[in-house]
């Protein structure tokens, strides 16, 4: 049997599971909303100041929400033994990992991106910045999911993997957040922003190529114990 129909049924299973876990998956989105709402309350309600911070606030919120949901990426599969079967499958495990990460992005990164315009209006971000904000968030959350999957795989066998995951992955998220906010801030300030966006796209492509390999290697360690 050929590769694609198989991958399609794997994809269907992941989407089904995401749908049945929708309350778990709604949490990071709510968290995102709360973080963004707390900022004006905690810092200043002054719309002009908020507008300066808006790209950063939205990005930090998206990053934290993504991190929050990463711990679930492989955990239930590890616990019920499905992960072993994934590594023994006739499909290359990298394709399965890619499939899982893609679904993870579809159910966290994409909704975050879609929520962003609403919140950016609340933070007083000029409407002209919206398309670029959404584009960078979409690209950025995809690379966050990809890089994060390595950390999730490294910590999946551990009892208290969640906190460790944060420590492992946070430093690796630095470039994503810098280029992501950099692009939007540059555009708001009327400066050229294309270079930031290009770097972000390059990072996403690079992690698309590398992270599945490393994730599978890490999963083999977790399962091999």
């Amino acid at each position, binding site marked *: 049997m050929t590769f694609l129909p198989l991958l399609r049924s794997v994809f269907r299973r992941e989407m089904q599971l995401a749908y049945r876990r929708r309350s778990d998956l709604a949490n990071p989105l709510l968290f995102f909303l709360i973080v963004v709402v707390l900022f004006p309350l905690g810092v200043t309600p002054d719309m002009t100041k908020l507008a300066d911070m808006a790209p950063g606030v939205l990005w930090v919120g998206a990053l934290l929400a993504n991190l929050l949901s990463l711990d679930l990426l492989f955990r239930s599969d590890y616990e019920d033994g499905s992960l072993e079967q994934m590594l023994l499958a006739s499909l290359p495990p990298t394709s399965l990992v890619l499939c899982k990460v893609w679904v993870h992005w579809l159910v966290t990164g994409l909704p975050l991106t879609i929520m962003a315009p609403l919140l950016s209006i609340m933070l007083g971000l000029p409407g002209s910045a919206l398309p670029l904000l959404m584009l960078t968030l979409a690209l950025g959350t995809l690379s966050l999911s990809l890089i994060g999957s390595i950390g999730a795989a490294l910590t999946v*066998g551990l009892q208290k*993997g969640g906190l460790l995951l944060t420590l492992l992955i946070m*430093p690796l998220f*630095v470039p994503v957040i810098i280029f992501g906010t950099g692009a939007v801030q540059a555009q708001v300030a009327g400066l050229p922003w294309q270079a930031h966006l290009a770097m972000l796209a390059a990072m996403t492509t690079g992690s698309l190529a590398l992270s599945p390999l490393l994730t599978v290697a890490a999963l083999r360690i977790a399962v091999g114990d």
Partner: protein
Amino acid sequence: MWQAFVRWFHKWSSPKWFYTMSQPWSFWLGWAATLIIAAALVWGLMFAPVERLQGNSYRIIFIHVPSAFLSQAIYAAIAVLGLVGLVWKMKLAFFVAKQCIPVGASMALLALVTGAIWGKPTWGTWWEWDARLTSMLVLLLLYFGLWALHNAMERPESGDRAAAILALVGVVNLPIIKFSVEWWNTLHQPATLKFTEAPPMHPSMLIPFLMAIVGFYLASMAWVLMRTRLEILQRERKSRWVEDELNRFAEGQ
């Protein structure tokens, strides 16, 4: 030629051989490092002239720059050793890589703290979100992550391989992090030493500075060796020769 190399490689991959061979090395490296660092610091602190712009605070350079160098060099070493360990399944590479972590982390911490202390009289602030400070902070976090991952794993062998993967991801990311934070770069002076240009420092500052760098290199190697020898004893404790060695230690106490 190739076979000789393979034989040499195999010899080096044997923990017992390494343990025996490294004993004099760690001793002499340690003493050489002590002497060189002592000489460099006496020279640098007491005899090198005052710097025109920064006054005497520049004397922090004799530990700040070497520790910053070492923290990056050691990270690179960890990644290379991790790759060697993963590809050739060489236990010894993992042992060395693991024991590089605390040494490298201490160097990164030293570079950050001395940098902050130096920043206060020079820039008037303890901390600045500038490119080098930020990427050094990220490096320190990566070191902490590596160590935490090692300690979290139940089997040390899994810890070795997991940390090697993380180190590799980090090493791919370090240049990107460095490059990315340079976009909001501000205060830090450009690199003090460049291989392509003549050094701008006066020889009476440059010589103790170079000595300090060499001394820190030697000291780090000595520390890593010492630690690796203990790691070998701990990980191979079931083998006959380690038991003999530990018996010898216990009697000598």
